[in-house]
């Protein structure tokens, strides 16, 4: 058995002899991984960053007693099985213990066979409870598997893959275009894993500048740099026993990539300014919508990190890969937003649904969601028509052919012209900025206009030049 798969038992007793004796029995005869604590207070600290299956605790201890400790454990994780033990038990005490949720109550001195039997049963109980919870979670999601609505073959295959890899500890790389549900997939991976009872930690990598990202991820020691006036725990340590999602991993600087590689390889982190390393038990899930292979070729992404991350890849289907799911998804968002905006009994006209199925959907499910949300707010009657699905006021995230001839005949001259112009401006300016690498002066020169004029246009069409750099 690998160390990770062995049942983890925590023994709490203020008598050293008792701890030694019990540890010896449980390690030798049962092969369990055993940790010990001299007090309930100390045990609670250990519980913070360790997953135990069974806790065996004395009742009479200085400080917090076994009953109070039991209450705390139950608040923390009801799947942990607790056994109380005492030197001078009374029936009243046993009844109290059992009613408060202890699994068993044992009087000292006890024979080894008895304790082994009890702990074996307790381990089994925890295993069943955790398994049950996982299955329950799956059932609850029945109509809506882990938040995913799609029923196309492509989506179902992806969900099966997620369910299969969830319970292991392997690093998973989630790829897919923007708006395909990469974060939702990461949440599902976490929720279906044995780590679900702890909160998942999410890091949006490009949101943080290089040096801040580094100290956020790995922490630092007081005095590591100017302004580090106290120790800081990194997110990896915070995610101990849980899952960490590194969102948009492609955007992290190479220096941080090197450190990340070390975490993945050695399972330990070294805070800035600290000589010591700390071992961590964290499942890493990374996501990206970028071409990592291309980044590797350009030397912007470490190849060895890529292979570490790429142990298991889940690729989220784009909306184009699952066109047959569009009506289902549209209906799902329609129900959600009509409830939210108090506009029930709305429906799509047949034309509107057809229009939704024919669009290119560069922004994928997220874009579909936004379009439906807006339509619910804007539609006049009880039916959503094509007009309600066309956005007159803001340009789409990526060039989208909303102004195709198909939709013209449903619009007034003014609206149609406005649409086409809007689309032209958005595409033209986007391309100009892309070509200029986000440099406004260069772009303006290429377009044959003044810098200020270009800036005005960018503001009007809400294009952020920074996003092209």
């Amino acid at each position, binding site marked *: 058995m690998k160390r990770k798969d062995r049942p983890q038992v925590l023994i709490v007793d203020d008598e050293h002899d008792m701890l030694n004796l019990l540890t010896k029995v449980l390690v030798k005869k049962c092969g369990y991984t055993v940790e010990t604590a001299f007090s309930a207070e100390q045990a609670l600290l250990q519980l913070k960053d360790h997953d135990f299956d069974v806790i065996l605790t004395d009742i009479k201890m200085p400080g917090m007693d076994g009953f109070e400790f039991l209450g705390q454990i139950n608040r923390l994780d009801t799947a942990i099985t607790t056994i109380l033990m005492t030197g001078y*038990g009374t*029936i*009243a005490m*046993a*009844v109290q213990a*059992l*009613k408060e949720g202890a699994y*068993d*109550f*044992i*009087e000292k001195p006890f024979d080894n066979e008895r304790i082994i039997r009890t702990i074996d049963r307790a381990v089994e109980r925890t295993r069943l409870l955790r398994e049950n919870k996982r299955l329950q979670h799956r059932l609850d999601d029945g109509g809506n598997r882990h938040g995913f609505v799609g029923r196309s073959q492509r989506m179902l295959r992806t969900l099966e893959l997620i369910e299969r890899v969830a319970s292991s500890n392997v690093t998973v790389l989630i790829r897919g275009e923007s708006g395909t549900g990469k974060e939702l997939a990461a949440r599902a991976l976490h929720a279906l894993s044995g780590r679900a009872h702890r909160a998942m930690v999410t890091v949006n990598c490009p949101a943080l500048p290089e040096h801040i990202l580094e100290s956020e991820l790995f922490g630092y020691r007081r005095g590591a740099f100017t302004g580090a006036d106290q120790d800081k725990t990194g997110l990896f340590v915070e995610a101990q026993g849980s899952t960490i999602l590194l969102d948009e991993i492609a955007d992290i600087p190479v220096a941080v990539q090197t450190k990340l590689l070390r975490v993945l390889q050695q399972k330990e982190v070294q805070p800035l300014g600290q000589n010591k390393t700390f071992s961590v038990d964290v499942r890493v899930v990374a996501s990206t919508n970028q071409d990592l292979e291309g980044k590797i070729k350009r030397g912007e992404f470490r190849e060895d990190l890529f292979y570490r991350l790429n142990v298991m890849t889940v690729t989220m289907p784009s909306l184009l890969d699952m066109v047959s799911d569009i009506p289902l998804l549209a209906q799902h968002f329609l129900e959600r937003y009509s409830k939210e905006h108090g506009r029930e009994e709305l429906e799509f006209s047949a034309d509107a649904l057809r229009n939704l199925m024919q669009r290119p959907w560069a922004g994928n499910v997220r874009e579909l969601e936004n379009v439906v949300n807006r339509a619910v707010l804007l539609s006049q009657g009880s039916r959503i028509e094509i007009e309600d699905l066309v956005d007159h006021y803001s340009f789409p995230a990526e060039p989208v052919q909303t102004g195709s001839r198909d939709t013209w005949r449903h619009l007034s001259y003014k609206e149609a012209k406005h649409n086409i112009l809007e689309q032209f401006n958005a595409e033209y300016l986007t391309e100009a900025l892309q070509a200029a690498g986000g440099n406004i002066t260069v772009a303006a020169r290429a377009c044959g206009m003044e810098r200020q004029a270009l800036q005005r246009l960018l503001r009007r069409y809400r294009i952020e030049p920074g996003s092209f750099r």
Partner: protein
Amino acid sequence: MAEILALDDVLDATVLVGKILRKKGHTVHTFTEEDEAIAFARKNPVDLAILDIKLKKMSGIEVLAVLKKENPSVRAIMLTGYPTVETAREAISLGADEYCVKPIDRAELEEKVEKVLTAGSGQ
């Protein structure tokens, strides 16, 4: 007021429990035979069962299991002269609300019954 079933292999014990609880206004059905008690509970759902553990043919724990299976909302108090951690554990895990040790005095019995019945109606 509640419908209460009392089962004990000693007739006097059931009589005593019956007397105390009837004074409190409850209807008490007393039995010394397990099968008769179970057959009664099957036909006439009771609110609370007070069960001795050492009986003639079955144990009170087994009776508890049968009653709970038939009617999961039935409340139960175990009453025994031979308390062990083992039977306490089993009784509680089968859903008994209290596990009391004989001899039990009148005030304690009244108080436990009251407590169990109020907890039951609150659910």
